[in-house]
């Protein structure tokens, strides 16, 4: 028998909030790609020691909401050559591929950049089931990360039909079947019902939770409630990820509040909450203001809810969404090129270049509203850092957001460069709260792992995946977080001080729910009537996943 080969991360200052470790000096032992208990035999020597004394040690970062793979991401790459030539150039080396940046980096560049930032897991937030195979193919070219995706189903015809006919058992089986067929991770609702209306009417959309979706005669409220319940009963690790109706519209906070209420106590995650927290009336930008206090209050008192922020950063980026009518709206606001694509039976898509300006009242308010969310949700375990990459800005802005949260002087300095009305229409100036390193570790790794039901991630206890990021402390937290000293993925050093050392492809994380297979013939009958591809050619074969891991249901 060969001896176990250990790696030891020695004497780092460890932040492992899931295990109650808040800045204590510890050794971490790694074997077989996982964290293990320290060997009891004092004569055991590690094969490799990584000296972390004086350095900060955290679990690898987890981005639970970004757009990094699949049909719409790739369309955005094709559509925006102009920002790549002037952006950072990613040259190939003896162990890395070349690539391009801009707001939507190429696949390899995406993997390398996340890794160099200390992130080791990421979830694409919106994949149409018909494009699932495409997303998996891109994942296989996106190294250094464990990855999964959420499956668009808030405008799926079978979902709406089951609700219309009051067939909850069929709905539940369908969700299980669809997640298994796509090798996806979680149900995603994007403007539930609204995209279907967009497909059949000029500038069509729904305006509120109780508007009926024509042809199906169901409401967004029924879709939200129905899927949340079914997903809860299936025991999905991340039951439902919700992009609310009316994204970006003045006065939409009421829709968001209604969405939270529509869950009726079932677990649900409200994504890019920043874009859904606006006061003001009837599309009138002059009355635009923050309603985070009201919404955060509701979240604070309802433990079934979690949110990620969708922070806006000033600068140019690309908006990409499964929300077709939103894409149309934004393209009219900005007047630039516009991509829209409707996918049969399932979903929509909108893409357009956008720019956030600090002198614009609306944009500066969006920036402030994002920060309010971090600062007004009391329990850091229920608010997650995101930029909705690339919608609010790039994931590369995370170190800047960390500084904004940990340093109120810096935050106020930036606020003073913004449109002056922001201080009247949001509470940001008055918020004194500063995040601790422990709280940063929660909102960037421990929290998302818990919200996603990933037991092996987001912590450093025995049995966890050995995904570890080691930072050099610095007074300026942006500098500290933008270039980790060492990044370890599954026990292997993949980055040292920005240099890529190894490029493992990473695992695909997906679910394999137990569902009622008796419903499959009914799904097949529906499918064969209206889809343009064959039933047998729709499910994604396991061979597309390369390395993969099934995340078990919640017990």
């Amino acid at each position, binding site marked *: 028998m060969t001896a176990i080969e250990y790696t030891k991360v020695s004497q780092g200052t460890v932040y492992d909030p899931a295990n109650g470790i808040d800045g204590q000096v510890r050794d971490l032992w790694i074997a077989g790609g996982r964290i293990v208990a320290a060997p009891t035999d004092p004569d055991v020597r590690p094969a490799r020691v990584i000296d972390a004394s004086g350095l900060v040690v955290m679990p690898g970062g987890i981005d639970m909401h970004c757009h990094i793979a699949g049909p719409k991401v790739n369309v955005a790459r094709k559509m925006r050559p102009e920002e790549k030539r002037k952006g950072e150039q990613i*040259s190939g080396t003896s162990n890395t591929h070349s690539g391009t940046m801009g707001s*939507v980096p190429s696949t390899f560049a995406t993997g390398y950049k996340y890794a160099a930032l200390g992130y080791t897991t990421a979830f694409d937030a919106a994949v149409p089931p018909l*494009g699932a*195979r495409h997303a998996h193919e891109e994942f296989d070219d996106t190294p250094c990360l464990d990855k999964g995706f959420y499956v668009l189903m808030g405008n799926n015809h079978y979902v709406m039909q089951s609700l219309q006919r009051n067939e909850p058992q069929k709905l539940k089986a369908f969700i299980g079947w669809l997640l298994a067929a796509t090798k996806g991770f979680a149900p995603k609702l994007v403007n539930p019902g609204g995209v279907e209306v967009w497909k059949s009417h000029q500038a069509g959309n729904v305006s509120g939770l109780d508007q009926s979706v024509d042809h199906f005669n169901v409401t967004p409220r029924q879709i939200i409630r129905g899927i949340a319940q079914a997903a809860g009963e299936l025991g999905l690790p991340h039951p439902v990820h919700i992009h609310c109706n009316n994204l970006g519209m003045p006065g939409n906070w009421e829709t968001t509040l209604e969405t939270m209420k529509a869950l009726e106590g079932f677990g649900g995650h409200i994504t890019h909450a920043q874009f859904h927290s606006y006061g003001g009336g009837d599309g009138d930008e002059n009355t635009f203001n923050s309603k985070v206090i009201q919404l955060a209050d509701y979240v604070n008192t309802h433990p079934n809810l979690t949110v990620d922020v969708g922070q806006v950063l000033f600068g140019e980026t690309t908006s990409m969404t499964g929300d077709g009518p939103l894409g149309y709206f934004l393209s009219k606001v900005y007047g630039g090129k516009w*991509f829209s694509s409707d996918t049969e039976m399932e979903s929509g898509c909108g893409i357009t270049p956008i720019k956030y300006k600090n002198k614009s009242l609306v944009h500066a308010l969006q920036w402030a509203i994002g920060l309010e969310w971090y600062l007004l949700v009391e329990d850091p375990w229920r608010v997650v850092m995101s930029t909705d990459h690339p919608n609010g800005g790039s994931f590369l802005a995370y170190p800047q957001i960390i500084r904004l949260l940990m340093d109120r002087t810096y935050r106020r300095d930036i606020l003073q460069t913004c449109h002056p009305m922001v201080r009247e229409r949001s509470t940001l100036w008055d918020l004194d709260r500063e995040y601790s390193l422990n709280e940063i570790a929660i909102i960037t790794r421990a929290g998302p792992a818990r919200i996603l039901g990933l037991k092996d991630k987001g912590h450093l206890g025995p049995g966890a995946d050995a995904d570890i990021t080691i930072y050099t402390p610095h007074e300026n937290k942006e500098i500290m977080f933008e270039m980790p000293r060492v990044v370890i993925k599954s026990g292997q050093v993949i980055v040292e001080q920005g240099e890529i050392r190894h490029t493992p492809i990473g695992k695909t994380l997906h679910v394999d729910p137990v569902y009622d297979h008796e419903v499959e013939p009914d799904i097949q009958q529906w499918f064969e009537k209206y889809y343009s591809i064959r039933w*047998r050619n729709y499910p994604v074969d396991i061979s597309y996943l*390369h390395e993969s891991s099934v995340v078990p249901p919640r017990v």
Partner: protein
Amino acid sequence: MTSSSIDAYAATASIPGELKVIQDATCTFCGCVCDDIDLTVKDDHIIEAKRACVLGKAWFLNHHNDGRASCHIDGKPASLEEGYDRAARILTSGRYPIVYGLSDSPCEAQRVAVSIVDWIKGTIDTTTSVCHGPSGMAFQGVGEVTCSLGEVANRGDMIIFWGANPAESHPRHFTRYSLMPKGMFLPNGRKDRTCVFIDVRKTKSAKAADIFLQIKPRKDFEALWTLRALAKGIELDPELVHRETGVELSVWQDLMDRMKACKFGVIFFGMGLTMTRGKHANTEALLALTRDMNAFTRFAAKPNRGHGNVSGADNVVSWRTGYPFGVNHSRGYPRFNPGEYTTSDTLANGEADAAMTIACDPMANFSQPAREHLASIPLISLDTKETPTTRAATVAFTVATYGINTGGTVYRMDDVPIPLRPAFQSPHPSDFEVLTAIEERVKKIMGITE
């Protein structure tokens, strides 16, 4: 667990004399990528291809193993190992190596081809640059409002074909997607749709039209802008419109009225638009018109892509480099410039000094200067059969045919990815295997450890 999508549905060996049926096989002959073909195989021959069109039947039924060697070097049969070594040496010693083709290979092979180009700092280009490349450029200018083909079947009540001849190029286009299907919102199928053809000549397809508009050759741009003006309600000079487009203003006005009145319009366009005078400007006008129409109703546009996996090539090259075709890596990172890095140009300008062609035949269809230059430089070719290009190649690999002998993934013209279900094994390696073997050697020579 680890595996590869190229093997999702691998071909099994035929048992002599026995019939084998492959259900829901995918035809890769054209961009329709019909995935409902039932193949009957006997003794390594496809004897029936149920539901395939005339082109698909020819593709499947005429396929046979011709006993050709899998590798030729300088025209003489050689071992694969020698071929791989020689190919790797050619690619790594060029100062301006180019790789071209890819539109009749599965995505898995395309990905390896892009890797090779990355390691040798070469230029990669696909047949997109000579068909819908202008559409790709127009797309970068104005975007695109589009939809999957099932949406056309379920909702498209006004179908316009512009510079396209699907009856001959995509024979099942009408029946599977665009005209005949009884869709969710069009229960009577063809009766619920209005079909318009706009072209410079009356093609076979025009028979399917309710309305046929014959415009003057080389005047697509003017015709499209006439419609854009009418959409906005701008008054036009009838005489000028007729003189420029060859069609009466009242006819254009009638068409515009119908376009505004439909519920879900779709414009399919072909190379009659993209490869005639105006090229990307024509496509830009068409995409902009489609966008304009969304101020009145729902409208979508879609290029009728030709080769079975040309859409896959666009996707693979885009996700790996950020650009869809014509990508140069000589500075170590990808740069895009159609007209400079596109193959007809790198050849005609005499810049390329080594080439690899995959599933394409530039010696048969490129310009004289391009062909002359290609014949003068070391060339590696991968093709399923002997062609003018393979005859000119220093190293010529005969490869198995995708979709018939090998599995993998192809993207339909609407970017829907579909798996292949091969019928029988080939004595030849797949292009994926050949490219992987070449890549291994290239990496060794270049000191790549990835």
